[in-house]
C-alpha cells in the first residue's frame, strides 16, 4: 500500500487472548504508539494459529505476519505455545527455504504486562517489513485491486 508515495506495509498480528492481546491493550492504555499498519487478530491461544492462517494472511495482502503468544511456560492452556514454537520454527524455516524473506515472519512472546514490549516489537517488525517492500512472493494476484 502506498500512502503519499511512501510504502506502508500491511502487518497481520495474531495475538493470543490471554497475554499478547492484553499486552496490546496495555500498550494502548499507556499511550504507547505502534503503527496503525498492524492489524490484530485475536486467537484463543497462539497454538490456534494454523499454518494456513499465516499463508492466507499473505495471500490476502499482508506484507508481514507476526504471531504473539504467552511466554513459554506461561500458556493459559499449559503447553499450547510450546507446540506453536515448534510449528512456527518449521513453517518459517520452510517459507525461507522457498525464498520468502525471513524478515516477513516472526514469533514474539509478549505477556499481558509487556505493553512496552508489544509496541516496540510492532515498531521494529513494521520497520523491518517496510524495508523489504511489498510482499511479491506469497501474493495472490487475484486479490490485488
Amino acid at each position: 500500500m502506498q500512502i503519499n508515495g511512501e510504502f506502508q506495509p500491511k502487518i497481520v498480528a495474531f495475538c493470543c487472548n490471554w497475554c499478547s492481546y492484553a499486552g496490546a491493550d496495555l500498550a494502548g492504555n499507556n499511550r504507547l504508539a505502534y503503527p496503525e499498519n498492524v492489524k490484530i487478530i485475536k486467537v484463543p491461544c497462539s497454538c490456534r494459529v494454523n499454518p494456513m492462517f499465516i499463508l492466507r494472511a499473505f495471500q490476502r495482502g499482508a506484507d508481514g505476519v507476526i504471531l504473539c503468544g504467552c511466554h513459554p511456560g506461561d500458556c493459559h492452556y499449559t503447553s499450547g505455545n510450546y507446540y506453536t514454537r515448534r510449528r512456527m520454527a518449521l513453517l518459517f524455516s520452510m517459507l525461507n527455504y522457498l525464498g520468502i524473506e525471513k524478515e516477513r515472519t516472526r514469533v514474539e512472546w509478549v505477556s499481558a504486562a509487556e505493553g512496552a514490549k508489544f509496541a516496540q516489537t510492532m515498531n521494529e517488525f513494521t520497520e523491518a517489513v517496510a524495508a523489504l517492500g511489498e510482499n511479491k512472493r506469497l501474493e495472490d494476484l487475484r486479490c490485488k485491486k
Partner: protein
Amino acid sequence: MQKVTCDTLAAKACELLENGTVDRVLGWKNGEFVYDVTPALFTTTDDIKSEFVFNDFCGANFSKYLIEETRKTESKVLVFLKPCDTYSFNQLLTEHRFDREKVYAVGIPCEGMADITKVKAAAGDGITAIKAEGENLVISTLYDEDKAVACADVLAERCMVCKSKKHVAYDELLGEDGDVIDSNRFDEVEKLEAMTEDERFAFWQNELSRCIRCNACRDVCPACTCEKCVFDNPESSVANKAISDSFEEKMFHIIRAFHVAGRCTDCGECSRVCPQNIPLHLLNRKFIKDINSFYGEYQAGAEAGSRAPLVDYTTEDIEPTDAVLKGASDNA
C-alpha cells in the same frame, strides 16, 4: 538387479495362500512393457503364477493400501515390504491406521529401483524389452541396438540416497537384512539452503509453477491418510481443484508437506508419481532435516509407537527466529 527373485516371492505368496495364513496377497502385477508394474491384489495361486512380478520397477509402496485392505475382512493379507516401505508401515501402525493382526508382512531386500525416465534417457526411445543381467539392465528398443546400462546409473533418486536397507517391521524376512545407511540424502537440500533467497525463490517458482494439481503426490503418500483432506473439503476454505493463481501452488505444497512433517518417512513416492517431475521430496526432506537439526535426530517409522516431533516439545526448544537462521545458514 534385485537379489531376491520374482520366483522366490511368488513361491512364498503361494505357500502362504495355500497354508491358509493369508487369503490374499498385495503384490505387483506385470504390465505391457516390463516397467509399467501395477499394484494388485492376488487371491489365487494361479493368478500369482501367471501375473505376479518383481523386478527393478516395483517401486510402489503398499503400506497405504493396508488401511483399506484391513477394513475389508477379518482375515489376513500378505504384503511384501521393501526396507523403505517398512518405515511407512510402522508409521501407519503408530497412528493406528490399520490392524496389525490382519497383516502378514514379508520383508524383502531391495537393491534400489530403477527410474524409467533415466532408463529412457540412457537407452533411447521405444523400449521394447528390459532384461536384468548381473549389474546391468539390457534394454532393447525399436530404433537402436540393445544397450546395457548399469543399474547404478539409472537408480531412482530416492534409491541413490537410500537411508536404510534394514527392515524395521516384518513377520518374516526373505533374504538377509541390511543396515541403516549413512546416506547423503540432505545434500540437495543443503545446496538449496546455500543459495540466496532470490535464487531459492526462482528455483521453487520454476518447479511449483508446473504443478497441475492432480493430487497424485497426496493420494499416493502413505502419511496422507486423512479420511477427508482439507483440500477436498469445501468447508475448509482452501479447497481448490486447480492452480488458479501462483499462490495456490505454493499453498498446496507447503501445507501438504507440513501436514506430514514429522510423520514423513522419506519414502519418496511423491516425487516418483509426479507427472510434472517436481522434486517434491525436497520439501519433505527440508522438514526432516530441520527436525533433526532443531530437535535431535528423528526418523519417522523407525520405531512403532514413537512420538512425532510436532506433537511433542521440550521447554528448551529453539526459538522460531533462531530456527530460521539455523535452517538457512547451517551449511552456508
